[in-house]
C-alpha cells in the first residue's frame, strides 16, 4: 500500500517542545554539560586564544594589552627574510636547504617528520607481529600480553631514565652491539644520529604493547571461514596472512595509524627527558620548540605561531587520512 507523502509545498507545523520533551532535553544537556564545559575551558577557548595570540607580541601569556603584530611572528619562525635572500642568491633549493638545516622551525619540522615516518610503520609492524604470535594458544601468552602492555602504563620518566642507562657508553645495549661486531660505543643520547634512534626505540617499545592489544581484539573478529576457504584454495600461511589477515585488519590499522601519527607529531616527554632536544638541535621537535619558545623565552606569540603550524599539519594529515577512510577502512 502506497503511503501518502506530504506535499512538498506544505511546511510541517512548527514543532513545540512538550514539557516532557523539554525535561528530557534538559537532562541530556546536563549530561553533556560537564564534559563540554571542561572541553571549552581547557581546550576550545585556549585554542581560539592561541590563534589570536599568534598575531600578537605577548611576553606574559596575556592577550589583553599585548601588541598586535600581524604576521610578524610567522615571518620570524620561518625566518622569511633570510630564507628569501638565500633563495634570491642561490635559487629555490638553496633557500629550502637553509630553512631545513639552519632555521629552528625547519629543523624541528624535519626531525618531527623523520621521527613520525619511522616510528609509525615500525610500531604497527611490531604490534601486528606480537599480536599474531600471542593470538595463538602458546604457553604463557597471557603473561606475555601483560608484560608487553606494561610499558604503556608505566611512568614515562622512569622508562626514559632506564633506557638512558641502557643506552649509555659501555651500557648493556652497546655491549651487545659490540659483541656483534659494532665499533660504536658512545652514549646514544650524546650522538647526533643515534639520539633520534634512541627516542624512536623507546617510543616503539612503549606503544607496541598498546596497539598489540588492539590488534589482538581485531584478530578475534576475523571470520574462521575465510582461513578455511583459503586453505581449501591451497593458500599457504604467508598467503593467508597477506590476503586474509592483513585486509581484515585494515580498519584497525587505519585507526592505529591516525592515533600514532598525531601522537608522533605531539612528541614531547621522551625528548625532554632523554635528550632535551640535543645534542645541538639533533632531536629538537615541534613541541619541544614550542615549549622552549613559550616557557623558556617567554615569547608566547611566537610559540602560538609555531603551535598553529603544528595544528595545520595535524589537521592536514587527519583530513587526508579521513578522505582515504572509505578506500582503506571499509573495503
Amino acid at each position: 500500500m502506497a503511503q501518502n507523502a506530504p506535499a512538498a509545498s506544505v511546511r510541517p507545523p512548527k514543532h513545540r517542545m512538550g514539557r516532557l520533551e523539554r525535561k528530557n532535553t534538559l537532562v541530556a544537556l546536563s549530561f553533556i554539560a560537564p564534559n563540554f564545559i571542561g572541553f571549552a575551558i581547557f581546550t576550545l577557548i585556549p585554542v581560539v586564544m592561541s590563534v589570536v595570540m599568534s598575531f600578537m607580541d605577548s611576553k606574559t601569556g596575556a592577550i589583553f594589552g599585548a601588541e598586535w603584530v600581524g604576521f610578524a611572528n610567522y615571518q620570524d619562525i620561518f625566518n622569511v627574510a633570510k630564507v628569501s635572500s638565500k633563495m634570491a642568491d642561490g635559487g629555490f633549493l638553496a633557500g629550502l636547504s637553509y630553512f631545513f638545516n639552519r632555521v629552528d622551525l625547519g629543523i624541528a619540522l624535519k626531525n618531527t617528520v623523520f621521527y613520525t615516518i619511522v616510528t609509525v610503520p615500525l610500531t604497527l609492524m611490531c604490534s601486528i607481529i606480537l599480536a599474531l604470535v600471542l593470538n595463538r594458544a602458546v604457553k604463557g601468552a597471557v603473561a606475555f600480553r601483560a608484560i608487553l602492555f606494561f610499558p604503556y602504563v608505566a611512568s614515562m620518566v622512569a622508562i626514559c631514565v632506564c633506557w638512558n642507562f641502557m643506552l649509555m657508553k659501555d651500557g648493556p645495549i652497546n655491549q651487545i652491539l659490540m659483541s656483534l661486531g659494532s665499533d660504536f660505543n658512545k652514549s646514544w643520547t650524546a650522538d647526533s644520529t643515534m639520539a633520534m634512534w634512541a627516542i624512536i626505540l623507546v617510543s616503539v617499545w612503549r606503544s607496541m604493547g598498546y596497539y598489540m592489544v588492539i590488534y589482538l581484539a581485531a584478530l578475534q573478529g576475523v571470520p574462521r571461514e575465510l582461513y578455511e576457504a583459503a586453505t581449501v584454495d591451497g593458500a599457504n600461511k604467508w598467503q593467508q596472512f597477506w590476503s586474509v589477515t592483513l585486509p581484515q585488519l585494515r580498519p584497525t590499522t587505519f585507526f592505529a595509524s591516525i592515533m600514532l601519527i598525531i601522537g608522533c607529531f605531539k612528541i614531547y616527554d621522551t625528548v625532554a627527558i632523554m635528550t632535551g632536544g640535543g645534542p645541538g638541535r639533533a632531536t629538537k621537535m615541534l613541541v619541544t620548540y614550542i615549549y622552549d619558545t613559550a616557557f623558556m623565552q617567554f615569547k608566547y606569540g611566537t610559540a602560538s605561531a609555531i603551535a598553529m603550524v603544528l595544528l595545520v599539519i595535524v589537521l592536514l594529515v587527519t583530513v587526508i587520512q579521513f578522505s582515504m577512510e572509505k578506500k582503506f577502512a571499509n573495503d
Partner: protein
Amino acid sequence: MKKLFALAMAMIMALSMVSFAAAEDTTLTIVAWDVNTTGYLTAQKEAYEASHPGVKIEYIDVSSQDYDVKVGAMLAAGDTSDIFMIKTVPGLMNWNDAGYAMSLNDYIAASNYLSGFVGMETNYNYNGEQVALPFRSDFWVLFYNKTLFDNAGVAYPTNDMTWEEYKEKAIAMSGNGVYGAHNHTWLSACVNWAVCDGVNTLIDGEYSDLAYFYQLVQDLEDAGACMPYTEITASGLHYSGAFGNGNIAMLPMGYWYVATLINNIKSGDYNVSDWGIAAVPHKEDVKAGSTFGNLTGAMINKKAKNPDAAWDYISWLCSEEGSKVTAGTGNRPAWVSEGVADVMSSVDGFPQDENSKAALLPSYVAIEIPGDPNASAISSILGEEHSAIMTREISIEEGIEEMNDRVQELLAK
C-alpha cells in the same frame, strides 16, 4: 531613658570598631617559590614580624620550576599581592615591560639606599627606573673536599689560583675512584668563567672567549680528571649527589650549595666530613677573586594593596639588617659588608679556616647573563651549541662559530 541607653550603646560599638580597625594588622602578601623548603623565607618572616609589630607576612607559594610562567599569568590576571620575589632577570624584564612592576626611584631617593650592593642593583634598573632590589646574590665559589686533599698530600686550593693551576691540581688528585674536579653539565659551570673579566658577556654575540674553557674541560675529561659530560647527562647525576659521594675533590658551584651541603652533612646523607671553599680560579689576565653570580630580588606590584608597607619590608630585607638574617640561614645576601660576612662564616657547619672566610668577599661579581630582551633566546642557542660541543659532536671551533653566527643573526633581527 531607653533611647539614651541605646544611643550610648551604639556609640560604644562604633568607637570599638574604630579602635579595632586601628589595631588591625597590615598583612603583606609575598609571592615566592618553594616556601616550605627555602629556609631563609621563614627566617626573614619571623625576624621582620618580631621587629615590626602590627605587620603580618603571608607567603603565596609558587613552584620553582614554573615560577616565571605562573607569576606572569598571575600578574596578567590582575593579582594584588604586594611583593613578588624575582627569580630571573628576564622574568622581571618581561613583567616590567608589561607594566606590572612599581618604580622604586622615589622611595630610594627618600631613603638614600643602594650603597651596599656594589653595583649589583643595576641589573634591576631599566631606563633609569629601579624596579626591584636584590636581597640574595649567589656568586660562584670553589668547593673542595679537604679529606681527599689530605689523603693525597696535595695542597688545598687557594683564593688566587689560576685555571691552569686548577687543571694541574685536578689531574694530580685523580685516580683510585677519585675525580679531581666536577664541572657540572650547565654552560655556566663549564665555560661562563669568561664573563669574570667584566668585559665579556653572554649576550654580546661573540663567543671566542669561551674556547679556552671548553678546551680546559675537555682536557680534564680526557685526562680522566672529571666525569664526562655525556655520562653525567645520560645518568642524570646531580652535582650535589656527586660531591656528596665523597669522591670529588673540587666542585665549582654557586654559593647556594653551602646550605645544602651543611644540612646534608648534618643529617649524615653525604659522605663528606671536612670541606672548604675558595674563590673560583681566574685566568692570568683577570683579577683573583673575580666571579659571576645571579641575583634574587623583590619587586612591588603596581597593583599592591599596601605599597608603602611593601617598600618598608623590601628596604629592610635588602639592607644590612635583613641581610644578616638571610646570611644566618647559610645563604649569601646581596648586601656586601664585613658584618654580613661575619654572620655567614658563623653559621654552624661553615668551615672555619681563614681561606674559606676570605672567599666570602669576592673582588668582583659579574652577572651570569645580563638583563636583555634577547637573553632567553640567546641562552637557548648557547645551550644547544653547548650540548653539541660537550658531546663532541662538533669541534670547539665549529661550536663557537655556530654560536657567533646564530646569535648575531638573532641580534640583527
